[in-house]
């Protein structure tokens, strides 16, 4: 049985590599948010960029956001995981280099080649452009995704190697001896458990994603190499679902590591924790049929699996990680600063966004809500107010000048603007989904425009907040690399 005594852990500064990841993430994230605003402004009829530019920007927004949150999540995971295992800095930097090469390829494909088949590159759309983009532009886009994917495969292989060397296997990284045997209190720390889970699912997801990308690249130039569209769809959604979900599981490591430092309470890898991460490892890989509920050509059991796992998947989020964060903060005397506020609210964002998500995975609901704005409504909630809030919390942690530093009122105002802006923006999306507004429409019917306009105002609020977050992080980059105490002692402890 684990003990609940807290052992102080020193706050370590970030390596130059982690800072490079975070700076790139901050800049690209801001740009992608501006792109997102442009999409909503077009639907609001405040601007008029036309269908071609709408879908080009939509393609960039999707690919850019998925890529950049993965990069930011990897930075969080790598920063903390290296405290436990021996990671290769060279591989970490190679991933960043490959990422940037992939970004240039994608930008060229869309901006110069007019590619606009959406980030999901759903077969056979990339090769079927009706003359609006060339085969070369499609190949450049999918090649860019492939290069980014190869970088992440390298990163995860290195992480797998390091965990196997230190703990003796990936099963041990997930704490299986303690989960299925006696809990001797020696299970790996939450960071290692989460990193093992992410590494397993992402390696499988990325290999499947790379496989379909290569198949589609061959098909572009050799059409006689035929691909089954249903198989392609399954592979794309498997990869897409796993990869985008993994970013949250990477970023939540910031919560596991930082909240205990502020509350001086340990986050233990006990049996319930280990069971929930093993369950999540399996469920993240088998839940993807919930994207395919409207493809009745699939076997019924396959769709029912998506429906059932959708419900089960909420348990680890709500009952273990969400509840665990509440436990560690409840009557802890935690000192609220920008870091702890953002990390605490990130668990709220994740849990609250999971509710409309699992409801959407109900077959009878999906029948009338699939591919409406309900879908971006829920995933923007747990990605923006969940995952991205974790990354900003991490940035504030790294940049905090000293353990007693007070936040400026501007930052506090930005925090509330971020929370209110995100909830207002995502609720506008969800309400639009409720009234059946389809997603990915360049032009909206007049009945739908008022909600688009409301969303646009909230996005401006979010952008203002994010500008403050990013400005603050960049202005404190000098602090972020140094080793010193950042986390404040809890009230009641500081004076003891």
């Amino acid at each position: 049985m684990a003990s609940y005594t807290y052992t102080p852990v020193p706050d370590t500064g970030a390596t130059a590599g982690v800072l490079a990841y975070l700076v790139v993430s901050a800049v690209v994230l801001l740009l992608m948010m501006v792109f997102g605003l442009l999409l909503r402004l077009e639907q609001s009829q405040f601007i008029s960029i036309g269908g071609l530019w709408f879908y080009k920007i939509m393609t960039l927004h999707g690919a850019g956001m998925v890529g950049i949150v993965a990069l930011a999540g990897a930075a969080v995971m790598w920063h903390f995981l290296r405290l436990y295992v021996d990671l290769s800095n060279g591989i970490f930097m190679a991933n960043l280099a490959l990422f940037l090469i992939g970004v240039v390829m994608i930008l060229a494909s869309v901006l110069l080649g007019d590619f606009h088949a959406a980030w999901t590159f759903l077969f056979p759309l990339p090769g079927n452009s009706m003359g609006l983009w060339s085969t070369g532009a499609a190949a450049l886009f999918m090649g860019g995704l492939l290069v980014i994917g190869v970088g992440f495969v390298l990163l995860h292989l290195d992480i797998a190697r390091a965990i196997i060397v230190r703990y003796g296997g990936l099963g041990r990284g997930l704490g299986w001896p303690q989960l299925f045997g006696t809990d001797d209190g020696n299970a790996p720390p939450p960071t290692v458990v989460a990193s093992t889970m992410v590494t397993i699912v992402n390696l499988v997801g990325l290999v499947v994603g790379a496989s379909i990308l290569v198949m589609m690249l061959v098909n572009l130039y050799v059409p006689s190499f035929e691909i089954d569209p249903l198989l392609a769809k399954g592979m794309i959604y498997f990869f897409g679902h796993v990869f985008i979900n993994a970013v949250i599981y990477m970023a939540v490591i910031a919560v596991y590591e930082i909240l205990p430092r502020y509350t001086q309470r340990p986050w233990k890898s006990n049996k319930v924790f280990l069971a929930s991460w093993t369950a999540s490892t399996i469920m993240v890989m088998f839940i993807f049929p919930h994207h395919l509920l409207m493809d009745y050509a699939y076997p019924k059991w396959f769709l029912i699996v998506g429906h059932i796992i959708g419900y089960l998947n909420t348990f680890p989020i709500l009952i273990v990680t969400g509840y665990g964060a509440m436990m560690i903060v409840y009557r802890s005397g935690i000192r609220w600063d920008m870091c702890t506020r953002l990390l605490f609210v990130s668990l709220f964002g994740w849990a609250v966004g999971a509710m409309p998500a699992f409801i959407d995975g109900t077959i009878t609901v999906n029948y009338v809500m699939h591919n409406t704005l309900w879908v971006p409504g829920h995933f923007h909630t747990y990605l923006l107010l969940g995952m991205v809030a974790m990354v900003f919390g991490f940035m504030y942690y790294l940049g905090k000048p000293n353990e007693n530093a007070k936040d400026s009122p501007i930052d506090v105002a930005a925090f509330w603007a971020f929370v209110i802006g995100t909830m207002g923006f995502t609720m506008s999306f969800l309400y639009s989904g409720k009234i059946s507004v389809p997603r990915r429409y360049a032009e909206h019917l007049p009945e739908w425009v008022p909600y688009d306009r409301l969303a646009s105002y909230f996005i401006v609020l979010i952008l203002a907040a994010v500008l403050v977050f990013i400005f603050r992080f960049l202005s404190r980059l000098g602090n972020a690399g140094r080793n010193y105490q950042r986390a404040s002692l809890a009230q009641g402890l500081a004076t003891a």
Partner: protein
Amino acid sequence: MQETAWQVSLVLMSLITFGVIYVAINSGKREEDYGPLVKSAYGFRTKLFWGVALVFFPAMIYNLVGLPLPYSESAADSKLGPAQVINVIGHMWYWEMDRDEVKVGQPVEIRITSADVNHGFGIYDTNLLLVAQAQAMPNYTNVIYHTFKKEGTYRVLCMEYCGVAHHNMMTEIKVGKS
């Protein structure tokens, strides 16, 4: 259905909001001994687990068993007469249908496929609410059964992104007297 999904989401999201606010309000005064707090919190978590399970599992099963699923023939009530069949082919960027008039109150079997890329066949009622949909994809036919309950002109919108004119890919189904 949309209204139910919205209401249930709001209730669940509100419950989480209250829980988080409760913890935030009670975060200030430190209880030094974490062990007993953990013990009582774990006790509450077990209750919470069963509470959530008792709500979620019946809901999950009810939504699978209790309701006719859209792809199941039982969704079409055979007592109301033989199904009227519409064959649909999606093209970039228009719908080809072998009939666009059906009778109210009689089951309609809609057989949906695509000649080029993935599309989504979404039927909107006269209030512009989505009442049924299926993916239209090349090489496969997705079949749904739907009984229109009201007369009127229903709109068909594309529900899967298919290129630059995706948002203009609309047609109509006229539902008349039986």
